Every structure is written in structure tokens, then in C-alpha cells.
């Protein structure tokens, strides 16, 4: 019991004193996940929007694939990216395996389907509302898509936050492609897994507390955005 209390105290101390290892791990985690989110946004938002606005052969197949990918376990994504990046894989020549870039790639693959699916849903709703007005303006479909991405900006931010939440919480994919190398590819979740198994609870707990705060922040942000979107819709 007092072990646990000690661990909590030590964890608090690590955070309070901005322990170098802890700060390094947190910063790397944020860098990896934010970059992955940016990549996933650049691909997922227009993809989701295009699926909402355009009708083309293969559209249903893509939608089904995206929805299937959304439920994929992170370890499987990690395995696939590992195979792509391994020496024998198609991207092996890049030498990215066990670098932060590999982790970014894995997380981007993990959350692009989520962001695409959520933005498809958002843009579909807007398209129904705006369609005839935009058609009347003689807007081309591409113009209409760009317009709707902007009109739905608040709701789309929610999609990005959902992606960020999932990427920052996952451990399997980054563990496999990053290798959990000290000071190189150790992020919060992989460190928690490793340190807990080693019995070093204070660092694990400290990172756990930070992850929980982050999740709270994401949830709070999502809630605020939802309110803002509702206000905008009724306004």
C-alpha cells in the first residue's frame, strides 16, 4: 500500500521537477502524434469530403475499406508498417525502421481512416444542406468541396481531435515499428509498458498521469467544439 503511495509521490515529483527523461519522452510523443495527425488530416479531410460530394465507381468499396480500417487493432497496423519498412519490404531502402518517422507513419496509417470517415459524415450532412445553393452559384464540384471543408471547419476539428486521441493512446503500433529504444523512440505508452514490467512504477505513473490529462484535454476540447458547432448551426 505504501509502495503505491511512494510511487505516486515519486511520480508527482518527476512531473513537478520536469525530469529530463520524462520531458523528453512527452515531447517525442507529442511530436510523433501531432505530425501523424497533420499527415492524416491532409489525406483524410479531402478524402472524406470527396467521398461525400463525388459519386464515382469504387466509392462504396473505399467507404467499406475505411470503415473496416477504423476498427483495425494497432498491433496489426504496426505489423503491416513493419513489413513495409523492414529491410526486405518495399520501403526498406529508406531505412526508417526504429526511427520516429516510422512511428509517425504507423500512427498516420492508424488514424487516417478515422479522420476520413468522420469528415465524410460531416461533409455529407453539409452537402445535403448546401447542394442546390452551390449548384445555383454554378460552383464546380471541386469548389463545392473546398467550400464545405471550410464551412464545416469546427466539426472537422472534432474529427482531428478524435484522431489525436486514438494515436496518443495506442501502444502496439509504435512499439513494433519504433522498437522502444531509450532516448530515440520511447514514447509515453511504450515507456509505461516497459517500466511497469520492470517494476519502475514512478516513471510509468508519471506518464500515465500526463496521458490522462491529455485525454481529458481532448475530451474537453471536443465538448467545446461541439458547443461551438451547435451555436454556429443555429446562428
Amino acid at each position, binding site marked *: 500500500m505504501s509502495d503505491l503511495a511512494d510511487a505516486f509521490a515519486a511520480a508527482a515529483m518527476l512531473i513537478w521537477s520536469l525530469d529530463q527523461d520524462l520531458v523528453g519522452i512527452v515531447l517525442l510523443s507529442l511530436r510523433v502524434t501531432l505530425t501523424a495527425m497533420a499527415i492524416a488530416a491532409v489525406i483524410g479531410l479531402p478524402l472524406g469530403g470527396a467521398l461525400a460530394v463525388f459519386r464515382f465507381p469504387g466509392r462504396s468499396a473505399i467507404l467499406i475499406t475505411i470503415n473496416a480500417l477504423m476498427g483495425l487493432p494497432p498491433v496489426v497496423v504496426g505489423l503491416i508498417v513493419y513489413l513495409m519498412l523492414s529491410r526486405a519490404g518495399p520501403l526498406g531502402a529508406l531505412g526508417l525502421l526504429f526511427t520516429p518517422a516510422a512511428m509517425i507513419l504507423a500512427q498516420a496509417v492508424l488514424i487516417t481512416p478515422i479522420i476520413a470517415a468522420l469528415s465524410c459524415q460531416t461533409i455529407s450532412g453539409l452537402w445535403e*444542406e*448546401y447542394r*442546390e*445553393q452551390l*449548384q*445555383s*452559384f*454554378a*460552383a464546380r464540384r471541386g*469548389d463545392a468541396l473546398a*467550400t464545405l471543408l*471550410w*464551412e464545416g471547419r469546427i466539426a472537422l476539428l472534432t474529427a482531428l481531435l478524435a484522431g489525436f486521441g486514438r494515436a496518443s493512446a495506442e501502444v502496439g503500433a509504435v512499439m513494433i515499428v519504433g522498437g522502444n529504444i531509450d532516448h530515440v523512440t520511447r514514447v509515453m505508452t511504450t515507456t509505461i509498458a516497459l517500466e511497469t514490467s520492470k517494476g519502475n512504477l514512478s516513471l510509468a505513473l508519471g506518464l500515465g498521469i500526463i496521458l490522462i490529462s491529455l485525454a481529458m484535454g481532448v475530451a474537453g476540447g471536443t465538448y467545446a467544439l461541439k458547443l461551438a458547432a451547435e451555436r*454556429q448551426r443555429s*446562428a
Partner: protein
Amino acid sequence: MTALTDPAAAPAILPLGLEGLVFAAGGKTLIKGITATLSAGSRSIVLGPNGAGKTLLLRLCHGLILPTGGRIVWKGAAGADPALRQAMVFQRPVMLRRSVAANVDYALRLRDLARADRQQRIEDVLTATGLRRFATQPARLLSVGEQQKLALARAWALRPDVLFLDEPTASLDPAATRAVEEIILRIDAGGTKIIMSTHDLAQARRLANEVLFLHRGRLCEQTPAPVFFTAPRTAEAGYFLEGKLFPQLRRINP
């Protein structure tokens, strides 16, 4: 308001020819073979009871939906893209989530107009519709009546050959209705052909040069306004003018 008319404009895409126009959906024929010619220089009012097909007819003419039979011909288009020479004001217009001025600018930018020209047109139409003081406000915060004026301003700024209006005053109070009607008359005076639907008889009397009377998807008559309001040619229009239900319906609701 010379800036709001376009003296150098190419000849209008009018007249608009409807040739046996049919629209069917959900197993029902909703527009039943309408043939008519709508020419420049007059205000055409599409009149008819609820569900007659007024909105459908305007959407067909504007190209928002495709007819399942017959044709729509812009006889003066001569190679020009008719879609770029018309505008429509909807019963419930969609305001973009940006400022009042930016809403007008949006429509203008899609027509690839130069910045200075756009600025001038925005200034002109916002002044003419009394919305200038709202220019920088979010459009969605405007009242329903103000939003309808903005929809008119946005369409007016395009200086279309034809402006379709679908019951533009349906949810407005009498004062706002008059204000909108005045704007419509000014757009008409600028040389834009007005094609407007309404089921408000008094409004039709105020605005119509000619009436197209629709009943259950059919064009009963296309008649000059003075004749229509004194001696309509069809029984359906007669009942409508007297504020009565068409007999077939009256039997169901005694």
C-alpha cells in the same frame, strides 16, 4: 443605380422555352408536360396552390434537377453557358458561415470576377438592399427577413439575365415582404427577367405582368396579368382566385 445594370452585357439567354416538360419521381408524375415560352422584359409569376409543382418547375428551369421528359431550351444562349447567366433565391436560402459581404463575394468569385469589380458590386447591392451596416457581421446572425434580403443581394450582384425566386417572402412579415418586393422591382428595372413563384394572390397582383397558373403539375394557363385577375381562362384558376378549393378536393373536406 446604373452600376447595378449591365449596359454592355451580351444579349440575354432568353427566351426560355419549355417543351413538353415532364418530371416524375417516386412513381408519380409531378410535372405533367408543360410547354411554354418565357420572354425577356416581363415579370412572370408562377401561381398555384400548395403542392401544385411551383418549386419543382423553378428547379427544373434553373437546372437544379433534370427533367425526366421534354426539354428546357435557352433560345438566346448562342453558345454561352446559361448556368452562368441565371440566379435563384430560395424559399429558405443557405447563408454561408462568413460575413454578409463575404457571402456576396463568394458568389462573385465563382464567376471569376476581378477584385475591384467584386468590391464595387458588393458595395452597390448591400447599399441597395439596406444591408450595408451589417456588412462585416456573420450572415447567419441576420434575421430571416434580412437573410432573404441578403439572398437577393447575392443574386443581384451576379447581374443575371434571369432571376428565379421561389416564394421569397413566404416567411416574412408585411413590412419585410414589401421591402423584398421593392428590391425585386428594382432588379427587374435593371433588365433581369423575373420568374417568381408565390401562392399569395395579393403579391401576384402587385408584381405580375403575366401569370402561369399551375394546378397538380399542369400548366392550366399562361395569361397576361390584367386578364388573369379579371377573367381567368380555366375553372381551376377561377376557384383559386375566389379562395376556394377545387371541387374534387372540397368533397373530401366538407
